[in-house]
């Protein structure tokens, strides 16, 4: 009789040897004593919760899902997933109206972009911030990302025909941020791709990747959106044989790993064909003789920041190597550490202090650098860095696009 078979869980928490290395590298445990740390919140707590669900500890809400515990774990335990699954399964707390607004980046973006100038101006006003803080518990010290006047999708419609002419094609998962807040990044991506002879398509139907829905507890809605996205991605990858790229490291990570691990949405048939734009470009450059036509006289100093989900993906290397191709670039790679924003987490009044304390040493390191830009693949890191330091922050694709000669 094999007794072991009765002791195997869906996740692999039995692999934990209690070494505490995860807690050593947890950015939250380092600054917030209310959070018990990933070892206790994850594998230790799981053992108890399996016995009796009321061992669930609401302090698990402090986990920012950065996955740095998983990167550090010498035993390959999916600690972050265990914690997120426990929140999904056991948390009795209902999300607030505020959480609904923060989580629905898609809906809020759709409502805001037509009135962008008004919305941006209003959100910047002190009394409005005070109300948001008092009524909604969205911290008044937080700067909101600006909405764009007109979406990336509406701009793209006018380009679709031209893009279809390129012999090689990719599908672009632009994400809410590019669509509603930063269409120029999407345009930069199109420029860079075109410079390499690749045309850019959009997916048949793109929904928000759902990362904010997951972290705010709207699991059914996240599952619905994930299923729709995977079906659109499948159409591109399987039916049309066109791979999918994203510029947001968190969108890419969520679609590849959180869908199957947290939402139960299977993606094994397409997972390898969803990746970050910088990785796609790196591969293309190493396979084909493509000469990128850089401007001659650019001089630029940048520091690269590795977002947590990119650290988990292990792909910061590609973004860094691409930046190195730019002639006369001075590149510093910042220590890989969490900036503290963690998507919608840092917007919440109760998390503001934790969020800023986590980022403190990163901000110091940035301020000590003599640079023109911080460069990173994550939009929420960008907000946090721009709000908390004196340096502007750009996506590597935008830096690359700026350095490329404009083609006629």
């Amino acid at each position: 009789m094999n007794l072991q078979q009765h002791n195997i869980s869906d996740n692999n928490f039995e692999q934990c040897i209690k070494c505490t290395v995860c807690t050593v590298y947890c950015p939250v445990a380092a600054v917030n004593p209310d959070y018990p740390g990933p070892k206790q919140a994850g594998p230790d707590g799981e053992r108890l919760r399996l016995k009796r669900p009321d061992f669930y500890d609401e302090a698990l809400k402090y986990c920012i899902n950065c996955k740095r515990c998983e990167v550090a774990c010498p035993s390959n335990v999916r600690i972050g997933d265990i914690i997120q699954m426990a929140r999904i399964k056991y948390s009795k707390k209902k999300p607030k109206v505020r959480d609904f607004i923060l989580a629905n980046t898609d809906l809020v973006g759709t409502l805001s972009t037509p009135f962008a100038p008004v919305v941006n101006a209003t959100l910047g006003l002190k009394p409005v911030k005070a109300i948001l803080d008092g009524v909604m518990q969205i911290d008044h010290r937080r700067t909101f990302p600006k909405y764009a006047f007109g979406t990336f999708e509406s701009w793209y419609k006018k380009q679709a025909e031209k893009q279809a002419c390129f012999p090689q094609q990719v599908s672009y998962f632009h994400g809410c941020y590019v669509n509603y807040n930063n269409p120029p990044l999407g345009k930069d991506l199109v420029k860079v791709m075109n410079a390499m002879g690749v045309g850019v398509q959009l997916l048949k139907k793109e929904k928000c990747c759902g990362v904010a829905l997951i972290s705010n507890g709207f699991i059914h809605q996240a599952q619905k959106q994930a299923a729709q996205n995977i079906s659109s991605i499948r159409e591109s990858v399987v039916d049309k044989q066109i791979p999918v790229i994203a510029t947001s490291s968190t969108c890419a990570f969520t679609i590849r790993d959180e869908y199957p691990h947290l939402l139960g949405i299977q993606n094994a048939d397409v997972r390898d064909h969803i990746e970050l734009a910088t990785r796609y470009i790196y591969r293309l450059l190493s396979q084909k003789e493509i000469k990128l036509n850089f401007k001659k006289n650019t001089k630029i100093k940048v520091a690269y920041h590795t977002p947590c989900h990119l650290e988990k993906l292990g792909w910061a290397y590609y973004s860094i190597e691409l930046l190195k191709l730019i002639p006369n670039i001075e590149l510093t790679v910042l220590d890989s550490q969490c900036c503290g924003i963690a998507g919608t987490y840092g917007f919440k009044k109760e998390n503001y202090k934790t969020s800023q304390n986590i980022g403190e040493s990163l901000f110091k390191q940035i301020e000590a650098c003599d640079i023109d830009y911080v460069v990173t693949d994550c939009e929420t890191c960008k907000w946090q860095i721009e709000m908390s330091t004196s340096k502007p922050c750009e996506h590597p694709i935008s830096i690359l696009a700026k350095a490329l000669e404009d083609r006629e």
Partner: protein
Amino acid sequence: MKFDTIIVGGGLAGLLCGIRLSKEGQRCVVISAGQSALHFSSGSFDLLNALPDGTPVRNPLAGVEELIRQQPLHPYAKLGKEKFGELAVLARELLLEAGIAVKGEEKANHYRVTPMGNLKPTWLTLKDLLACESDSHLPWKKIAIFNVLGFLDFYTQFIADEFRKMGTESSIHSFNFPVLECIRKNPTEMRSTNIARLFDKQENLEELIRLLKTESGEAEAIILPAIVGLGQDDVVEQLQEKVGKTICLLPTLPPSVPGIHTQQQLRKYFQHLGGVYMLGDTVLRAEKEGRKVVRVYSYNHGDIPFVGKNVVLATGSFFSQGLIATSERIYEPVFDLDVSFSKDREQWYNLDLFAAQPYQTFGVKTDDSFRAMYRGQAFENLYVAGAVLEGFNAMKEGCGAGVSVLSALSVAERILSK
């Protein structure tokens, strides 16, 4: 991804190999599946404390000759006596260069203090930890041992008892600050690193200084658990200067603050030299052409391979999953290299827990140049370094760190001489 050398494993062996190669201008990548065993380090590095037959070794440089005679498969036997001495000096210098301040030398072991208060011989000890020349007494008559209230990974009474046997009287002091109350909310997480984070803040350090000054009384020296200096180097100097007494740290149970600091320093130095460090990735398979490994594929990088002229396997032993034991066999999971182990499972272990355990000497077979054996033949460009090697018992011979750094440096030299 093109590199001169691909190093699988990011602990002491992998990093030291990478540092040596990067210094000569090689482009290296280290791929590490999670953090390394240095996180459990005592803060000391052993070179050679005893021969396989149990005879103690006082001078490793002299003792190695007899070790080689007794155990011809030992990694040190593959180096030979001369190289052993030469690389030991080089290793010590490299550690110092990387910013890891160690004391000790190759020609005479000194003694470190275990978390239980016993003295054990060793080669190098981090500068802030207590180390002494004698194996029977400490340099003081009266000391004060301080511990954080509720920190359970440090046993003051055991230590005081052992010290008394050596003629040193200890007073035991337990202390508590309001900031320590915060981490006490989770008593199970009251661990060395969580406490050390607090002492990375100057205001908390000042509080500790005040306390040590007022409470240490007549004591000649102060002993603290290794719960300071996670993020900075000069904490103990600062304490000594301001308190006006000798202050020594003793290792705690893991996680090891001095070990983590060492790991981070080594990684930083490797990256400073141009090395690429990839954490949290697992090498899944390799493509071979004849007797050469030409491409290595990992979980994170999928279809994009690591391409390198040479590959070094430094994945550690059972604990780090460089070796995997099932009930039938022991195997090496990355390249499925030849592993020495007894077919009869009863021969793997000794029922006397404290006796030499045969499984400790199991490991990957290599030729005399540390090139990995696969189905009885050596690879031309796949080298093996560190705890994953066969032929030594780190515990009984007291040679774990020495095997790691010396084999790593030897591999680096062989790659450079190609």
